[in-house]
């Protein structure tokens, strides 16, 4: 399956060409090139998936295929870094997800971004992002993954700051980059600790289940925990940064400053699930050697999920609602991984997590693209400026409704199936966890329908010009993704992706399913009651629970805490003294060298008079001195 290298090379080439050409070609040409290249690699990924899932199953278990693996940096015999392509069920599934969403976003952007300045730059960055994300998922070793991990961070930074004349976009891009970089520090230390004790970067070796690999970690402890736990926890911190887990989630809502299709691609469907993918990739290590860390991941995920869902209920910027909803749903995936065991029914959580990743990518991309379509029509992100749009935008309305039903977990839409698997895995782990997640699912249904009714129903806002349905290039991806959302739930996912790569038949747990559906329907009913027509209930509730409401709309003051810690504590007590030291000691030493040499130069400058006779005089004297020395000594 050597051809899979093309999936990586083509978007890179597209990035280089579009980046170099920039505005020398017409915008449409650049957009078309980017989209066509994406189309080609989408087709290639589908073909790869078909070939992999149909041909590479040995005795009921999918084998790991490594079509390409080259040694890239060789430091010593032991320490060498490879670059390669690893195909296994999760990476192939991710290939399909990334290329599909990326392709849809490329098409969509042809309509959405058309008259923006820097259209070519936008497409170049999209290609760079796609390249990095694909490289991340097919990495054969943890170091290669780290390289692409950072590349993904860079392209996210570039795309969030796409409107670089807008100060808020610049601030958001910096925030995203710094927060994720900070988390990546943990990731890097984790990688180093892990590879120091196991003597390998390779995923194949790490996840082979061979205890000899981890022999070096036995008995090694640090502050009461084994070094392996530390390493895996640090690696998870990297994943938590990218996947916006509490308390590193603060960058994601701000990242909505970027263009909406970018939010759909990067901050909903692909990059933010990199953390989930990382945990899934190292899942055998987590589950066998550090189950405590894995349970920690489950609690972090559950808390984040609840926290974000509560905030999403009161936000008024539609993209921010979706951002918090994304955080919440990624929390679901983390929980599912955290409560999972390995193999068979035990491994339901793992399978459910990947399934939810797949379905969520589709319907959340659809939601964001739908939101983009709405923003395109009314030129505002605020809910108050919308309302009653269903008459003007039928396609957006229907596709958005489908996505909302899917995320709320209503059968037969895809979200129902994956969320149901997650819930039953949670109930298996502990009833409390299951109940919590069911409650969050109910919140999800509530805030999504609050969003839906506020945009498409409710009181009609007076528009400057009548809103219109989006152009064909924007409607097509909506319809496609809606179709996927309707049918993706029927994919027998357990046949493809499971924790032990063996076959697993999904069976719906009727109790869990019916309870969650009933609760979701109740939430939707509540949302309908509160938001479908203009009513005073939301306002009354807001005044009754004024404290909670204002705390939630300020996102529980986490940003303020961060600002306080960084600006008041770190800047004043660490950065300023360091800056003083830098200016007055390091810079002063260097300036001292410069000043001294300048002073010396000025002093000896007069020797270089340029007067030839003076030189000749010195020369003559020198000759005489040498002659005398030769003669008399």
């Amino acid at each position, binding site marked *: 399956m050597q051809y899979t290298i093309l999936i990586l090379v083509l978007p890179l080439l597209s990035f280089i060409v579009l980046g170099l050409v920039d505005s020398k070609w017409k915008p449409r040409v650049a957009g078309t090139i980017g989209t066509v290249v994406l189309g080609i690699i989408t087709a290639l990924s589908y073909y790869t998936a078909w070939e992999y899932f149909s041909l590479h199953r040995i005795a009921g278990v999918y084998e790991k295929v490594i079509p390409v693996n080259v040694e890239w940096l060789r430091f010593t015999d032991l320490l060498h870094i490879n670059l390669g392509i690893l195909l296994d069920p999760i990476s192939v599934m991710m290939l399909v997800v990334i290329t599909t969403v990326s392709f849809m976003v490329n098409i969509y952007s042809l309509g959405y971004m058309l008259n923006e300045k820097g259209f070519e730059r936008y497409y170049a960055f999209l290609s760079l992002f796609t390249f990095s994300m694909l490289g991340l998922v097919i990495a054969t070793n943890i170091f290669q993954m780290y390289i692409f991990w950072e590349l993904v961070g860079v392209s996210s930074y570039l795309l969030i700051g796409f409107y670089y004349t807008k100060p808020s976009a610049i601030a958001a891009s910096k925030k995203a980059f710094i927060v994720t970089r900070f988390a990546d520090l943990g990731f890097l230390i984790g990688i180093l600790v892990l590879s120091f004790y196991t003597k390998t970067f390779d995923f194949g070796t790490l996840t082979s289940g061979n205890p000899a690999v981890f022999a070096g970690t036995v008995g090694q402890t640090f502050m009461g925990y084994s070094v392996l736990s530390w390493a895996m926890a640090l690696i998870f911190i990297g994943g938590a940064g990218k996947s916006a887990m509490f308390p590193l989630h603060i960058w994601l809502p701000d990242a909505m400053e970027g263009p909406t299709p970018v939010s759909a691609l990067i901050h909903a469907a692909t990059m933010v699930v990199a953390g989930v993918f990382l945990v899934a990739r190292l899942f055998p290590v987590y589950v066998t050697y550090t189950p405590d860390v894995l349970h920690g991941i489950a609690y972090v995920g559950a808390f984040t999920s609840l926290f974000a869902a509560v905030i999403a209920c009161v936000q008024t910027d539609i993209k921010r609602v979706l951002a918090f909803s994304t955080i919440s749903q990624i929390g679901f995936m983390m929980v599912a991984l955290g409560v999972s065991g390995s193999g068979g029914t035990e491994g339901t959580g793992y399978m459910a997590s990947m399934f939810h990743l797949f379905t969520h990518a589709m319907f959340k991309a659809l939601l964001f693209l739908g939101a983009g379509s709405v923003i395109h029509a009314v030129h505002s992100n605020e809910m108050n400026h919308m309302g009653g749009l269903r008459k003007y935008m039928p396609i957006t309305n229907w596709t958005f409704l489908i996505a909302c039903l899917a995320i709320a977990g209503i059968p037969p839409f895809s979200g129902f199936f994956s969320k149901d698997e997650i819930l039953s895995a949670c109930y298996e782990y502990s009833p409390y966890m299951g109940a919590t997640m069911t409650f969050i699912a109910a919140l999800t249904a509530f805030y999504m329908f609050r969003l839906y009714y506020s945009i498409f129903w409710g009181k009609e806002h007076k528009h400057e010009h009548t809103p219109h349905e989006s152009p064909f290039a924007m409607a097509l991806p909506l319809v496609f993704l809606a179709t996927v959302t309707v049918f993706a739930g029927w994919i027998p996912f357990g046949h493809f992706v499971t924790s032990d790569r063996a076959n697993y038949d999904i069976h719906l747990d009727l109790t869990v399913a019916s309870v969650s559906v009933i609760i979701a329907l109740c939430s939707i009913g509540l949302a309908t009651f509160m938001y479908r027509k203009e009513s005073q209930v939301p306002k009354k509730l807001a005044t009754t629970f004024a404290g909670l409401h204002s705390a939630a709309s300020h996102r529980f003051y986490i940003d303020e805490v961060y600002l306080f810690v960084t600006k008041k504590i770190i800047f004043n007590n660490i950065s300023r003294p360091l800056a003083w030291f830098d200016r007055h000691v390091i810079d002063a030493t260097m300036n001292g060298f410069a000043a001294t040499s300048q002073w010396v130069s000025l002093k000896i400058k007069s020797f270089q008079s340029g*007067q030839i*006779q003076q030189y000749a*005089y010195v020369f003559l004297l020198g000759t005489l001195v040498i002659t005398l020395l030769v003669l008399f000594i």
Partner: protein
Amino acid sequence: MGDLLTSFLSGPVPLEAYLGLSLIMFFAGIYGFLSRKSLLMILISIELMLNAADINFVVFNRYLYPSHLEGFYFALFTIAIAACETAVAIAIIINIYRNLSNVDVENINEMKE
């Protein structure tokens, strides 16, 4: 003293006399080169030094290897090159004079710094 003077005047010119002449010419050239301010005078001083060297060539050839001719040819060669060099130098000096109306070495510092 009388004998030396007699042999000096009656016999062939001794080697030391030639060398003394060239020594005087050479240091006269050096003195001129160091002390004169006019480019032309400096050029003349250089010529003086070259000619002192020529005399040395010829004299050493004549007294040490009378059967060989390399020293003579070398002197001729040097004269030819000195002529070329003078031509170039004079051309430069004329140009300087046209630009600055002056050929004093101390005044030629337009290109400095």
